[in-house]
């Protein structure tokens, strides 16, 4: 079985020039950086906060904070990794404010009992996503990732959706590489387990019915 092909990122060769111009006060250069990364920041934010209005706020706050603190960006990491770090922190702060009764931290002690061991092993249809239309599929994926702890969602979106490397993810989240890897494995396995009920291959004799995607489990 082949490995997953990562998304190819845009070239960043002129990025440092843009960052330097923005540092010198060129807001137009910073606007170009916003254009480059606003979609990524929004996607990351919404994966974490799970709500569009809060994700919009996170985008605004993260870029403004990045602009205000550009002097602190030393260029040792990519600008994008630095920006993601700011955006993740803003998003987690939003979550904490929304749910003060629950501590939300990337270091949260994730239960040690293995909740990721596959319980249900069923093969999926060859192109499972084609069983649903775009809107149904998005609803399923949204609802499924919603059930994961914030720390798993965050690692999953950075590594698997945005295509950051393990090292970049560790840097952006201030986690060790083994911590990133273990959270990623558990996130992937839990999502797989939860998607089983929508995507598993069905025998015709059982009636090839789709499970309802609106079972109100969120």
């Amino acid at each position: 079985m082949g490995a997953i092909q990562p998304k190819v990122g845009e070239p960043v060769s002129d990025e440092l020039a843009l960052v330097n111009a923005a540092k010198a006060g060129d807001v137009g250069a910073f606007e170009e950086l916003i254009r480059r990364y606003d979609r990524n920041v929004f996607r990351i934010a919404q994966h974490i906060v799970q709500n569009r209005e809060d994700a919009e706020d996170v985008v605004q706050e993260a870029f403004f904070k990045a602009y205000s603190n550009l002097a602190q960006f030393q260029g040792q990491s990519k600008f994008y990794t630095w920006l993601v770090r700011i955006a993740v922190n803003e998003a987690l702060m939003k979550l904490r404010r929304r749910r003060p009764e629950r501590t939300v931290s990337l270091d949260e002690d994730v239960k040690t009992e293995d909740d990721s061991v596959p319980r249900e092993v069923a093969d999926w249809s060859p192109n499972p996503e084609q069983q649903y239309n775009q809107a149904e599929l998005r609803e399923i994926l949204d609802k499924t990732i919603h059930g994961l702890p914030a720390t798993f969602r965050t690692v999953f979106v950075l590594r698997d959706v945005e295509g950051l490397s393990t090292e970049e993810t560790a840097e952006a989240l201030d986690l060790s590489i083994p911590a990133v890897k273990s959270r990623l494995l558990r996130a992937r396995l839990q999502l797989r387990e939860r998607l089983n009920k929508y995507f598993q291959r069905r025998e015709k004799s059982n009636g090839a019915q789709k499970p309802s995607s609106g079972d109100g489990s969120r």
Partner: protein
Amino acid sequence: MKCSEFLHELTDYLDGVIDANTKAELDEHLAWCHNCYVVCDTTKKTIEIYRDSQLYELPENLRTKLRSAIVQKCQSRKKSSS
């Protein structure tokens, strides 16, 4: 190799960051263990479905609105600090 050992290596295996010897052992395990094959295959599909899903795309009109709001804040900060 036991299934639990296979599972432990699954992330590196799927990411293709594994040495040739370990990969050969994992491939051999996959060749006879149907359960691990299915878990590996469906985990790979999970990742690909999420990656290609266009979940949480930023609509163009909202994108423009957010960008101009950010630029405006940056400009007023620039004015106040100069």
